């Protein structure tokens, strides 16, 4: 309760500073609109449905792309952790491609897929998959070898060992890898939406880009706020329960 109060006060003070800055008259409202104006834009955009539709389109792309990325990245990461050959090949590839900013995939995606949903998904998947591979690989490699030895003596080999020992043992790393993958997916999608206009759906990135084209600063800031809030909610809803679960089991991070 006290923590909520502190957090609420903090954000109210931020809003207050913003309001004061606009009232000082140093910046024109075209450059820095007051909070009320942004709120008004958000309210209107919610009522006319343009914002809700954009959120829906963006989240659908994000979730599908992210799911594909994790589905590819998780097994690949486990695979690279098993042998030095996979590490030297797939692992090195993953390491290289992870350093490539995902917006760099946009030109290639456009040439391959044209202005389609597939191009969007491709960019998101490429943004997600490599960081998931690397995090899973690190996770599986840092498992104390004694777990695997204990499992072997108790008759756990092969597939059983992977699903019942290696995977749960690397869960803390897998979850942080998935979290990182989520952040990367979100960034890639926004980059893709800002750069590419496609007719099958206007996402939040497009809304942001139109705001710039129309010099509608209230829209630009409003959409940015929405993007941040969605990121926060996703983090709380998707990952916090997992992290709490892991902390309880492993006895880590307890206060």
């Amino acid at each position, binding site marked *: 309760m006290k923590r909520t109060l502190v957090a609420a006060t903090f954000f109210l003070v931020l809003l207050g500073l913003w309001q004061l800055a606009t009232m000082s008259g140093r910046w024109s409202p075209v450059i820095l609109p007051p909070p009320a104006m942004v709120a008004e834009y958000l309210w209107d955009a919610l009522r006319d449905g343009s914002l809700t539709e954009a959120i829906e389109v963006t989240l659908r792309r994000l979730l599908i792309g992210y799911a594909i990325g994790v589905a590819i990245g998780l097994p690949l990461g486990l695979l690279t952790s098993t042998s030095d050959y996979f590490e030297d090949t797939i692992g090195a590839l993953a390491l290289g491609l992870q350093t490539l900013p995902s917006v760099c995939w946009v030109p290639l995606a456009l040439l391959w897929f044209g202005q389609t949903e597939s191009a969007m998904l491709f960019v998101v998947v490429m943004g997600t998959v490599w960081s998931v591979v690397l995090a899973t690989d690190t996770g599986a490699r840092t498992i104390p070898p004694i777990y695997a030895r204990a499992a072997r003596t108790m008759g756990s080999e092969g597939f*059983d060992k992977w699903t019942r020992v290696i995977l749960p043992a690397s869960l803390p790393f897998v979850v942080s890898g998935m979290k990182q993958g989520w952040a990367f997916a979100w960034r890639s999608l926004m980059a893709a939406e800002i750069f590419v206009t496609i007719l099958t759906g206007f996402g939040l990135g497009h809304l942001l880009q139109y705001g710039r084209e129309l010099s509608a600063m209230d829209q630009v800031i409003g959409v940015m706020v929405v993007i941040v809030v969605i990121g926060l909610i996703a983090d709380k809803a998707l990952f916090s329960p997992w992290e709490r679960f892991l902390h309880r089991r492993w006895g880590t991070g307890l206060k």
Partner: protein
Amino acid sequence: MTANESEPRASPPAELVVESIDKWFRTDRTTTHAVEDISFRVAGGEFVCLVGPSGCGKSTLLDIVAGLTTPDQGRVLADGQLVQGPGRHRLVMFQESALFPWLNVFGNVMFGLHRKPELSNRQRRAIAEYHLQLVGLEKYKQAYVHELSGGMKQRVALARSLAPDPRVLLMDEPLSALDAITREQLCYDIQDIWQRRRKTIVLVTHDVREAVCFADRVFLLSPSPGRLRDEFRIPLPRPRDINSPELAHIAQRITAALKGYLTETPEAAE
């Protein structure tokens, strides 16, 4: 810790034969001769302790008996059968860190049982519950590993390795990380459980007292390369008190012998 009316059947303990084992560890830079020409025999139901300073190859030897490591020369027979890999009849009680943190206490004990297809789920639960009771942890079924004390973790590890009914139990320094009081208690409990469940036990430790407390026979190993140097029969009646003067007296004699080996191989004395 009273006997449960539904005490599960215990398999007869196996006889272990270790025949002229040699093991080298090779890395790019060095070759270490870890174990040299070690042979011994453990009768079914016997409790044997391997004692030696670090680097004497005792853990390697335990791994070889468990089937986790293959020797370069020699072989291990369990009841006449060649050991070619890990098997459920030879279970290892590792140090506490080998418990699985993603499972609770009950789940840890069930782990080995789940890998025995001949059991029904009801039998598995009954066996797990019996063994938790045996080590006195029936109230902690739902607890997670990090919530337990060091002694309790060792008890869970003991229950986990006993539950699948192995014929040989291999123990890796089960008492070394414990405080004196917990140590004394667990020492009694392990003796009690050994007499009740009658397993062949091979225990490795660097602690001579721990070895004397448990063993029918103590084998002394000297380091670099690990060699079997001597064998002491421990005639003390059971249950033994790890802090008793008689036990301390025998331990002293064995320690003196160990020191003797160390001075004759000065490069290992450091």
